């Protein structure tokens, strides 16, 4: 990203007010500078990286195997197995650690699919405008209105339950938000002076898109993809809960489903239900914090609040008493 940004297009950038954070270091640096300046982004990023490490080194970290029966069904938490056992007598902690693999793969792969579709549609619609724009946005609008989870359920029920299918289904459904946001951004980038200049100099559309437009919208695309990861993981748990997950794989969604189906509730085995949900919530929270922090940084308007005492020193009233 930074190599593209250091090209001739970047020369016109410093006068550009939109890329405020990390402006001097190329737009690839935006993500990095956001991470450093915003604690919520740093926390989200760290949690995400840690989870990825856990997934990669799962066999080293997990105390037992993911299918190894180590005790009686629904044995409560003890020193040997800190999160207790599930209905098959398998260690919950090991299941959570192994389950992170499928959940993260689904999350990131589906988000990548969504980024590819949404990014392309957004850039094409925003850059070319006119009929292309109208057609693509109509399609996006229809997809936005059709409820996503029922559509996913229907497709998954018909296609069959495999990991690839689930990734494609989730990716194909969640590109609409990305497309709209990217389109809006591209529309404004297209009108900027340096893009006009490149056009006047006879640069081809593809050159302008890849060298001038894409680097400008890249941070936004990254932010949006991070947010889509959260949505995709959420969608995976929903599909798995409805019995549409890949039956041969362990994911957090399937652990919740398994606890529900095996009646963990009637025997009060909260330890079989709580951990996978908390794991999902932590990862979704991390993605949301990181994604929104980058988005916030890209939207400088939000930084001024005319009501806030601290940021805008016009108000003589004390903060305690609004009346």
């Amino acid at each position, binding site marked *: 990203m930074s190599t593209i940004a250091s090209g001739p297009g970047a020369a016109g950038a410093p006068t550009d007010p939109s890329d405020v954070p990390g402006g001097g270091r190329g737009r690839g640096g935006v993500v990095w500078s956001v991470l450093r300046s915003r604690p919520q982004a740093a926390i989200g990023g760290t949690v995400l990286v840690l989870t990825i490490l856990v997934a990669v080194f799962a066999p080293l970290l997990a105390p037992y195997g993911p299918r190894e029966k180590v005790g009686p069904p629904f044995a409560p938490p003890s020193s040997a197995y800190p999160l207790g056992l599930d209905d098959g007598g398998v260690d919950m902690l090991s299941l959570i650690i192994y389950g992170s693999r499928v959940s993260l793969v689904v999350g990131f792969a589906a988000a990548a699919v969504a980024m590819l579709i949404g990014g392309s549609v957004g850039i094409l619609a925003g850059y070319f405008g006119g009929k292309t724009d109208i057609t693509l946005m109509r399609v996006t*609008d*229809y997809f*936005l*209105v*059709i*409820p*996503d*989870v*029922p*559509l996913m*359920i*229907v*497709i998954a*029920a*018909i*296609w*069959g339950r495999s990991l690839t299918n689930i990734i494609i289904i989730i990716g194909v459904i969640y590109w609409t938000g990305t497309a709209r946001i990217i389109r809006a951004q591209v529309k404004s980038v297209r009108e900027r002076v340096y893009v006009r200049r490149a056009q006047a100099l006879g640069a081809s559309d593809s050159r302008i898109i890849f060298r001038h437009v894409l680097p400008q919208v890249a941070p936004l695309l990254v932010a949006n993809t991070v947010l889509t990861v*959260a949505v995709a993981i*959420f969608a995976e*748990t*929903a599909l798995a*809960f*409805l*019995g*549409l997950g890949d039956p041969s794989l362990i994911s957090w*969604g399937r652990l*919740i489903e398994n*606890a*529900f189906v095996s009646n963990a*509730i009637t025997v*009060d085995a*909260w330890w079989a*239900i*709580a951990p*996978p*949900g908390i794991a*999902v*919530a*932590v990862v*979704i*929270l991390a993605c*949301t*914090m990181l994604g929104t922090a980058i988005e916030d940084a890209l939207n400088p*308007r*939000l*930084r*001024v*609040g*005319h*009501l*806030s005492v*601290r*940021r805008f020193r*016009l*108000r003589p*009233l004390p*903060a305690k008493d*609004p*009346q």
Partner: protein
Amino acid sequence: MRGADYFLKRTLFALVTVFVAITLNFIIFRATPGDAVTGLRCQFCTVEFKDQLRAELGLDKSKWEQYVIYLQSLAEGDMGRSFVTREPVVDELIDPLLNTLPMIALGTAFSIVFGILSGVVAAWRRGTFLDWGNLSFSLLFYSLPTQWLGLMLLIVFAGTLPASGIADPFLAFTDPSWWDTFVDRLEHMILPAATIGIVLYGEYALIVRSSLMEALSEDYVLTARAKGLRNWAIVWRHAFRASLLPVATLIALSLGYLVAGAILVEAVFSYPGIGLVTYDAVTERDYPVLQGAFLILTLSVVFANYLADLLYFKLDPRVAE
């Protein structure tokens, strides 16, 4: 005049979306490689039975013929028969839909009221501990998987509130007054509605907060301050009104989530609504019912979005331009 134009445009869009949904429904179920019968798994599914079923469903005709027949029967309100109960799909769907609506309405009302209150407080007290706490809570609730939250509520409130179904099966024998029936229904509704309400609350609070914060950074807020207006007047009369617009759009868009939430929550609490029908249809691979449920859910969302569009015009006539 502009209003009539806008109204016409939105109506047309809603109608086309319905048509797209109906066609999509057809494509997914009939035009995929293999058909609904190929994937059917049951004890008595012999080749003859499958062929007979295909003939009955019209699957032996060409795709175009099938499409026309599908549209015709749909226009007559015929969605085929359930594979499992052999009853008409429409009959299987109407009662559950009526069961779902009050439950969802209760959950949504809860989340809109608390979401707006909490979002306004957070934006108003931006950067303070109150904002931080509000934000953390909303983010946390927003991150919880719906079905998981339902299961946790089920564990916590086991014994205090009814855990499944829509009514106490023994109540009917005691000749209950309408009030008893009402209370019983409400009790069965509380947990599923609360689950949906809590998750949506987080989302709405976040939306209201950021939307109001954006409105508070506008110049007219500065003008209002310069005029010496009180803070509550600035927030409620000026900024909040303006921020309602994006909130209305986003609430309309989250209606799709509401449908997803209903499916998950009703599966958890065995609440006999359209979500449970969908869940059962998925587990039993009852394609006609699944297809019908998908269509009904999509139509409800399209209709609700259409209403939101009209409301949007009421809130801000400028959208027609």
